[in-house]
């Protein structure tokens, strides 16, 4: 049988390059993750949200505590890009002014769009002073009204006339960071407990597993409610923040500990672990140098999936009024403003704006975590 021309060429080519490119495990994980399109999109969304959290002051046009008596419950003002007047259509971002009308009979006031009044909006405008990244003093903001005293309520105003957009942007920092810090705390507890349980086995394992089962069999919300209600109201915001984070992190560590234990149990019998131990490595070295690296991708995936749980827990507690307290702005404390049906009917944006932000963040983190979990084991098909 004779080879065709192309087959010969192919054979020649494979002779030229006998060693294929060898990819490390992390490169394989990355290659598998990239194929998961939804997870890729979610990764971009999550990065965007964390960037918002980092540069919150720069992005928020108004300080979160700036009230305005004349704009209580002002409805959202849509941002328009073009102005059409006698001179034709020009690019000029602006919002329309608001006219307040008081209905004396119903004893309430409503807002109407004042088409005459155009509030020009610019980029990199001067506004209130802040410290970028907590270090660099600055007063430029990404966008805002050219005259900082003009009203611009892109997502409406709350009962004190505070700008919801700015508050949500600032709340991003608190809510998203609680997720991260909470995950860090539960990582430490989870890996320590799961590691002890899986590495030593025996009665240590039984004790820890029973304890985890106990925690999982109890409805958590009443317990966390009790713990959170015990936080004195006069504590400084930072301490409240820290304690709420710890309470929230109590939720995530059990599933992490189980996962770590399972990995330890399956790795304990592997040849390379036995080899490492025969080489005279201590338990600590075996665990840190050989076991942890081989399941760190799984841990990262579980951690990503734990972040949204913690964000939801913080939001629920703050919403009930027993988590973070008002001077601190988080998505939960913002939703607290929309607690009763009357304020929602009067100002639906109090519910819609923070609510959609939470849903987007949690969805993105879930999809990202799912993609990471699929990619965590690059050798499986």
């Amino acid at each position: 049988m004779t080879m065709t021309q192309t087959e010969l060429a192919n054979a020649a080519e494979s002779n030229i390059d006998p060693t294929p490119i060898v990819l490390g495990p992390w490169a394989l994980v990355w290659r598998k993750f990239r194929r998961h399109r939804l997870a890729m999109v979610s990764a971009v969304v999550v990065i965007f949200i964390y960037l918002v959290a980092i540069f919150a002051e720069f992005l928020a046009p108004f300080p979160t505590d700036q009230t305005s008596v004349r704009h209580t419950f002002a409805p959202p003002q849509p941002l328009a890009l073009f102005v059409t007047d006698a001179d034709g259509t020009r690019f000029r971002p602006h919002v329309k002014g608001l006219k307040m009308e008081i209905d004396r009979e119903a004893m309430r006031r409503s807002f109407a769009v004042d088409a005459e009044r155009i509030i020009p909006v610019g980029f990199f405008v001067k506004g209130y002073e802040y410290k970028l990244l907590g270090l660099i003093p600055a007063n430029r903001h990404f966008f805002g009204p050219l005259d900082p005293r003009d009203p611009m309520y892109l997502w409406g105003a709350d009962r004190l006339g505070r700008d919801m957009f700015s508050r949500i942007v600032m709340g991003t920092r608190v809510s998203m960071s609680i997720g991260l810090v909470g995950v860090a705390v539960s990582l430490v507890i989870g890996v320590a407990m799961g590691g002890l349980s899986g590495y030593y086995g025996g009665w240590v394992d039984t004790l820890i597993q029973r304890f985890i089962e106990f925690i999982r069999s109890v409805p958590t919300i009443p317990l966390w409610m009790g713990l959170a209600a015990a936080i004195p109201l006069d504590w400084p915001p930072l301490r409240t923040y820290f304690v709420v984070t710890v309470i929230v992190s109590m939720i995530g560590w059990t599933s992490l500990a189980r996962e770590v234990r399972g990995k330890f149990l399956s790795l304990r019998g592997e040849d390379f672990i036995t080899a490492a131990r025969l080489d005279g490595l201590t338990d600590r070295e075996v665990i840190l140098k050989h076991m942890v690296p081989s399941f760190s991708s799984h841990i990262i995936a579980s951690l990503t999936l734990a972040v949204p749980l913690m964000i939801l827990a913080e939001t629920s507690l703050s919403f009930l009024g027993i988590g973070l307290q008002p001077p601190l702005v988080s998505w939960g404390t913002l939703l607290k403003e929309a607690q009763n049906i009357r304020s929602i009917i009067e100002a639906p944006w109090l519910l819609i704006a923070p609510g959609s932000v939470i849903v987007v963040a949690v969805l993105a983190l879930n999809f990202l975590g799912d993609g990471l979990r699929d990619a965590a084991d690059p050798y499986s098909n």
Partner: protein
Amino acid sequence: MRGFLLRRLLYMIPTLFLVSITTFIIIQLPPGDYLDALAADMGEAGVENTAVMEALRQQYGLGQPMYVQYFKWMKGILLEGNFGISFEKNVPVNDLIWDRLAWTFGISILTLMFIWFTALPIGIYSAVRKYSVGDYVATFFGFLGLAIPNFLLALVMMYVAFKYFGQSVGGLVSPEYLNQPWSWAKFVDLLQHIWMPIFVVGTSGAAALIRIMRANLLDELYRPYVVTARAKGMSEFQLLLRYPVRVALNPFISTIGWILPTLVSGEIIVAVVMNLPTTGPLLLRALLVQDMYLAGSMILIVSVLTVIGTLISDLLLAWVDPRIRYQ
């Protein structure tokens, strides 16, 4: 089976003990106690009645070491079924909680049934028609159900019901039936209200179960025994229900164990938002005013009942799946 039952019952004892201790520690956490708050109030009002205060303090063992208070409380519960007294309302805790607990567990169990009846068919459909439009829709709503916190969904539903259907929102019955005795009309009114908390609490659980059912069934659908059954000429529907669904159902039952605690938790939050006559609002109020025996009793009973519910689900699983019994 008997050995399994015995073992599970024995495991429950330390769990219940831990539950009671945890509860007691939590309600003891806030600095001061209800009597301190009362004393401050009385001092402000200009009334000073140390004798009464001292009597109250004696009765509840307040100010004594924590373990003494714990034993006093537990002794009352175990020997007399006496959960103590609600400081704020000045009536026995027993008079306040049982109605509300019944509602909480009633709604939780109805929610569990709702979850089963929705998640099972949708999960099977998603697995059998993998990557169909219906599967994608189910997956999308599944993720959405997981991402929307309970209380947020409750608020949205209340807003929609009020704005577009003009329904009275909050509570389990319309205001005009509140203090009426039970009648057919009141029952119908209850049905018109109760679906909302059930739907709200159940969504996230249903979403999770749909995904579990889909994954389980997908593992089974392409097994050789399914091919064999098909080759024998069994009708597709009969085949599906008789073999792969039955196997896929086992992990499904075991999920009750973790779903019951989350349902009870969810119910408590949703009850606060929707102002239901269940444990939620009373517990929140009791925690905020440090009405410790009331709050503690509710946390304790809710936890104990959940642990028992989990036990029942475990027994159910052992009954369905012999492999668990003989582990």
